[in-house]
């Protein structure tokens, strides 16, 4: 059963005479209860996909395609219906835990606010949130509620945000780069946190990250994005242990544990995309075919891959 179906999602931002193609024709499904990861380098369009899901893109973005959440077309919803879905059924854990809490309000007030808005008895909601905070390794949550966000550490803030986004038992939790800017210890805590969320709440999650370790620990399936496209989509262990696409291979080789081999070159200009495969300029296996024809994504060994080589060989 698919909770979320994304079909041919494209997002463009007008820039000068042309337009920046941030996401082009991305399609994937998220099954109920699974943790789906999107990985890729900075600027590959990962976050834009996450924002598009909640219709949070700036007004000048040109979006096409369909997003179907639990049988509802998200792009055709009225703002009032959209507000009912945001937070309650789909919730987003923002990219930067330091900026996601209002510095002028005490933590308790910010947590309570989530319930206030839903017309749920505040005391009952707070009790639940406090329980959640305890479960997410936050000690002494009552005391935390009386403090301001700047008095918490980065990891604590992240857990607080996690507790806030989980307190409504959303059907889908989107976590946008949850380990960005955390030190190794806090990062390990985040991995632990997401494993716990996954195991104890069985939530459907969309994890947007460039942290391969986190993706490996937590995700069931992974999509790899490059230059706004999905280049590979498969089970997490298969992607990370026996990647098929040259870009995925390069991404994994660039990991410090695997030798820190950088991918040569830069990702292409998104205003004027190269002909053929977007990756061929940096690909060490590139053939003549690769610079002529843009590969379509195709089924391959149980997963999906966008590469000519898999079929030429």
């Amino acid at each position: 059963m698919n909770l979320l179906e994304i079909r041919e999602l494209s997002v463009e931002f007008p820039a000068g005479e042309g337009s920046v193609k941030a996401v082009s024709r991305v399609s994937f499904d998220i099954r109920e209860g699974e943790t789906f990861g999107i990985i890729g380098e900075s600027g590959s369009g990962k976050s834009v996909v996450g924002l598009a899901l909640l219709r949070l893109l700036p007004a000048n973005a040109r979006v096409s395609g369909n997003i179907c959440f639990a049988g509802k077309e998200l792009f055709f919803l009225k703002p009032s219906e959209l507000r009912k879905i945001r937070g309650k059924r789909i919730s987003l854990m923002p990219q930067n835990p330091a900026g996601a809490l209002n510095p002028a309000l005490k933590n308790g007030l910010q947590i309570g606010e989530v319930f206030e808005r839903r017309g749920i008895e505040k005391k009952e909601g707070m009790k639940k949130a406090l329980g959640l905070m305890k479960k997410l390794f936050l000690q002494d949550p009552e005391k935390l509620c009386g403090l301001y966000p700047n008095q918490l550490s980065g990891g604590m803030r992240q857990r607080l945000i996690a507790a806030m986004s989980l307190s409504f038992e959303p059907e889908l939790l989107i976590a946008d780069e949850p380990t960005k800017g955390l030190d190794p210890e806090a990062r390990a805590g985040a991995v632990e946190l997401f494993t716990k969320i996954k195991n104890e709440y069985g939530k459907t999650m969309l994890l947007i990250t460039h942290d391969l370790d986190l993706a490996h620990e937590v995700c069931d399936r992974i999509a790899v994005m490059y230059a706004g496209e999905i280049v590979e989509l498969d089970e997490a262990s298969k992607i990370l242990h026996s990647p098929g696409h040259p870009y995925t291979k390069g991404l994994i080789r660039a990991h410090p544990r695997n030798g820190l081999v950088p991918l040569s070159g830069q990702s292409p200009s998104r205003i004027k995309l190269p002909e053929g495969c977007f990756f061929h300029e940096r690909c060490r296996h590139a053939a003549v075919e690769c610079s002529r024809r843009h590969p379509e994504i195709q089924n391959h060994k149980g997963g999906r891959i966008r590469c000519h080589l898999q079929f030429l060989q």
Partner: protein
Amino acid sequence: MDNVFADRFRREGFLPQLGEYGGEFAKRVFQRKDMLFALAALVLFAGVALFAPLLSPYDPNAIDLKNKNLGPSEGHLLGTDYLGRDLLSRILIGARISLSIAFGVVLISLLVGIAAGCAAGYYGGLVDECISRVIDIFLSFPGVIFALTIMGVLGSGIFNLMLALSVVQWARYARLMRGQVLSLKKQEFVLSAVTSGAGDFHIIRRHIVPNAIAPLLVLATIDLGHVILSIATLSFLGIGLPADVPEWGAMLSAGKEFMRTAPHQTIFPGLAITFVVVIFSILGDGIRDILDPHHEGGEMY
């Protein structure tokens, strides 16, 4: 570094304990002797203004032509004006009028400015264009001349004066608020409020205004002084308040005829205006230093 006053007040429970945000603010205020002094003077002024009818030795409008243009003496501490009215009584009652008009004007322009600035900054697009152009129009007139025109149309009176000065002032608040909202609405906590399904009004009230208000409060504090000056200016030009209302600017204006023979008639009201304006300037500067995280205030003197 704390100081003796703050310590004593905290022990006696006048000040909130440290650790809370408000306590921190109060502590910083007490660290700065200039602000402490200005605050004490303001409290004194406000007290005088509040109890002016009890404190003033004479009826401020009682005309006594036999004793006109007297210098300071035991009977009349600050002397009398050209109609023999007691200057001290008039200055005391005048404090009440000046302060209440100033607070009224600043409150009205603050509220209107916040509303307009929020709407312009938050909704952007056509709303922003319209409100911003209106703000530009209001800012392009020289303040006093604009207020004079409005007063000329409406006629004199306390309420009309407040209205005229508010019309002149609100645009500055709106512009400042708009800038604040523009930078705040891109912040992640606003985004996360949107993702959790909050409505526009809720976001503005809960997340944007509390974070944007600090510079506006600084402007408002400094503006209190400016408004008192503007009231005095308008009264000096003879268009502010009716003649029987004792007001500092009107007193200056009346006294200037007798500058050579009885200079105290201009000196004392002038001093009163200066005092109040300086007090609000010091407070405004101090609040700005304290609220501005980039500038460590406190050790200026």
